[in-house]
């Protein structure tokens, strides 16, 4: 195409704490074109998206929107320049109508009054033009997630967006909704002559929607091709990369083969499992059965929404158990509340540590001690010296950097995660649930966390359940892996017999 590209990214670089996250990333989006952006977790997709959306600035490189060089210092800048981002959590106001949301900030008026009728009329026009069957007078809160996403896309369009960024828009959708969304987005791109960047990890969708494909790996563009010139196999190869090559560079992997060979599955068949789950049903889980032995790391894999995290929440007493049986250390266990779970020796490190992981303004010491505080008190009175000593002893081998007496929110993401590990260690649990333990952590700290997880299982003899969306990580850290899919669980696979591609295919 000879037109001016709506978006051009030229040699963008970004580094966090001396770890390069994006390396010389370049790409272009032409009007009417849908470009899929695929890659591993940690490949740099989110960072790139945030830079494009103005939420972050690159260290070097150029951004051009419709041929003009732009620097964004805020998401508002990006919006004004015509770059609109639609994230998974939507920004619509649920109590306003569809039309009001679409024209928020640029409302039609007659005199001093809102002209609802005009807004609704033009909203209906755009919606119909793109075959979106939504009543403009409907309050957004009554819409499905898929409809809301479409409303947000339309709103972006009505704000004269030239480029629309869609961040994994299909994760929360059912398959027919996905088809709808794909058709509509393609239509919008083509009719409106806007460029779309579509971030996804599902190849099927990418194939259905994209004109061109960019694969990111380790912060660099490894493939930039039109869809017609490649096949799925090739793209998968590029996403995964040469996994063996990478493993050699990763210091944690040297010790892993040994660990795998001595995995407890071989030596202790007669030993009673630490956790036994049989035919467990909940609102989203169906017929889940699995075992975890002492000293074992069991990996849980699956797409977002496959039920992995719901299973943790069920075990921790946050979601109700409808039927089935659970045994912890041979005793029947019916999870009721987090406190109940803790009393049964279960510790849980959540995925969204900022949301529900820790108390930001309390110190590291206080946060680490919180669940175990009853051990360091008499009649409600806390023995602070004992707490300090116990926490410091736990923290020392973890190489946690930062002042333990200062608020936890001052620590970096990796150190916050280590703090949560320290907290778990101090609880002296039997069974540990780790949900995405390395999410948002830089590469150096990741290796350290992997080592800690392995050590935790082998030295303390506890059972560890790990959820991760990173195939490589899960294969590194687990003895066995179970794949979740639509609320069902697979049999357990020996991690050493699996490859990343196999794992990914099992989840689809």
């Amino acid at each position: 195409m000879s037109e001016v590209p709506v978006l051009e990214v030229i040699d963008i670089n970004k580094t966090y704490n001396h770890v390069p996250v994006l390396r010389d990333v370049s790409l272009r989006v032409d009007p009417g074109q849908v470009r899929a952006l695929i890659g591993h977790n940690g490949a740099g997709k989110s960072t790139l998206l945030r830079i494009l959306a103005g939420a972050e600035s690159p260290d070097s490189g150029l951004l051009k929107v419709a041929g003009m060089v732009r620097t964004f210092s805020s998401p508002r800048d990006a919006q004004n320049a015509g770059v609109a981002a639609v994230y998974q959590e939507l920004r619509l106001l649920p109590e306003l109508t569809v039309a009001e949301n679409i024209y928020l900030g640029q409302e039609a008026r007659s005199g001093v009054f809102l002209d609802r009728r005009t807004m609704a009329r033009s909203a209906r026009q755009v919606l119909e033009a793109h075959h979106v069957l939504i009543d403009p007078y409907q309050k957004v809160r009554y819409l499905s997630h898929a409809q809301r996403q479409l409303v947000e896309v339309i709103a972006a369009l009505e704000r004269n967006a030239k480029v629309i960024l869609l961040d994994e828009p299909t994760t929360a959708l059912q398959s027919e909704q996905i088809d709808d969304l794909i058709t509509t987005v393609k239509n919008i791109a083509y009719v409106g002559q806007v460029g779309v960047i579509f971030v996804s990890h599902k190849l099927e969708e990418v194939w259905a929607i994209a004109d061109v494909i960019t694969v990111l790996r380790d912060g660099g563009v490894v493939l930039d091709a039109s869809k017609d010139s490649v096949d799925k196999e090739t793209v998968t190869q590029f996403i995964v990369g040469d996994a063996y090559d990478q493993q050699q560079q990763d210091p944690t992997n040297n010790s892993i083969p040994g660990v795998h060979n001595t995995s407890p599955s071989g030596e202790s068949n007669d030993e009673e499992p630490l956790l036994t789950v049989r035919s467990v049903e909940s609102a989203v889980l169906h017929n889940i059965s699995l075992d975890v032995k002492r000293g074992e790391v069991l990996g849980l894999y699956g797409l977002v929404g496959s039920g992995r995290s719901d299973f943790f929440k069920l075990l921790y007493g946050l979601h109700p158990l409808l039927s089935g049986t659970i045994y912890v250390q041979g005793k029947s266990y019916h999870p009721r509340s987090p406190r109940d779970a803790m009393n049964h020796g279960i510790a849980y490190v959540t995925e969204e540590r900022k949301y529900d992981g820790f108390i930001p303004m309390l110190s590291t010491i206080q946060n680490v001690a919180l669940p175990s505080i009853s051990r360091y008190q008499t009649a409600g009175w806390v023995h602070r010296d004992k707490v300090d000593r116990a926490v410091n002893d736990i923290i020392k081998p973890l190489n946690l950097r930062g002042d333990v007496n200062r608020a936890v929110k001052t620590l970096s993401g990796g150190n916050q995660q280590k703090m949560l590990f320290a907290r778990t260690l101090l609880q002296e649990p039997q069974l540990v649930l780790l949900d995405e333990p390395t999410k948002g952590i830089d590469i150096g700290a990741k290796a350290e966390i992997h080592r800690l997880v392995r050590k935790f299982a082998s030295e303390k003899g506890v059972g560890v359940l790990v959820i991760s969306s990173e195939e490589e990580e899960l294969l590194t850290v687990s003895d066995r892996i179970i794949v979740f899919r639509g609320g069902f669980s697979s049999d357990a696979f020996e991690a050493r017999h699996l490859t990343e591609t196999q794992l990914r295919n099992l989840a689809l």
Partner: protein
Amino acid sequence: MKAKRRLPDEIGIFSVLVVVYLIFGVMTTTFMTTSNTFTLLLNGSVVALLAIGETFVLLTGGIDLSVGAGIALSGVVAAITIQHGFPWYLGVLFALAATMAVGFFNGMVIHYVKVPPFIVTFATMGVASSIPLILTKAVPIPIAASQFSFIGQGFIGPIPFAVLLLAIVAILTHLILSRTVFGLHVYSVGGNREAARLAGVNTAKVDVAVYMVSGLLSGVAGLLDASRLMSGYPTAGSGTSLFFSIAAAVVGGVSLFGGIGSITGAVIGAVLIAVVSDGMDVMNVSSYWQPLVIGLIILVGVTIDTLRAAQAQRTSFRQALLARLGRQAVHSDEKTSESLTHKGAM
């Protein structure tokens, strides 16, 4: 790994207090005397007690609007009890039981029915302030028991008993918040309720307990008030006490969003308000001016609090300002913000 000593957070408001105190001292001769200082502390003790109770509630992220009504309820219950020939200590007991019951009700409804604290305590404020009016038909009930007067009028040496009581309550509550399991739980519920629950904190217990503490202390404040007047006034506490108590806590650094603050700060805030009203009295400024001046002090205090909250959300004041001027990106902590802005994206 011993931390370097940092200045406590309360140092800012404390220096404001010292400066204001010295200014009034320089401007009038009668202000900076021992007797006037005790007088202002005595006058401020009701607000200070309420502020301490309010601090517990604010720390969990709640608010208690019923504390002013608790003053009237407590005083009238005590007066009626004594009027019916019961000994004064039973009057005290019943009064405290009544206001604690209000707190218990607040806590239960807020925790289990999930009605916002503002609404629940607003409702109980209405209820608790009407009951004394209904019971007394709006006529104050005199208290005859002379021992009862000691609470608000007695002295131990040169120190008014009420001030001593306040000091004891302040020290006790400070220790509870800073040194006990319950205190840690209060801070953690206010700092991040969900994380606290997942860490095994009994949030129901914490919620109910803080409103009961607040109720209890409003009862104590009511007894103090009734003892100074030697009667149960059904309209006591209906004025500025509630407003000043929340103001004292917030000015003293207790966050309205929960999780941040201390008893020390709240007490300093209450004393600051007492100093300002007393100083203006001494200078013969019309009492109509007092809420205005105190209102301004609150505005400044809350503004600072809001800026601090903005800072907690990863944007420093300077950065917020720069971002407003359009010069610099807002994000200072990209790593941790990632998990929030892109749930599950990477």
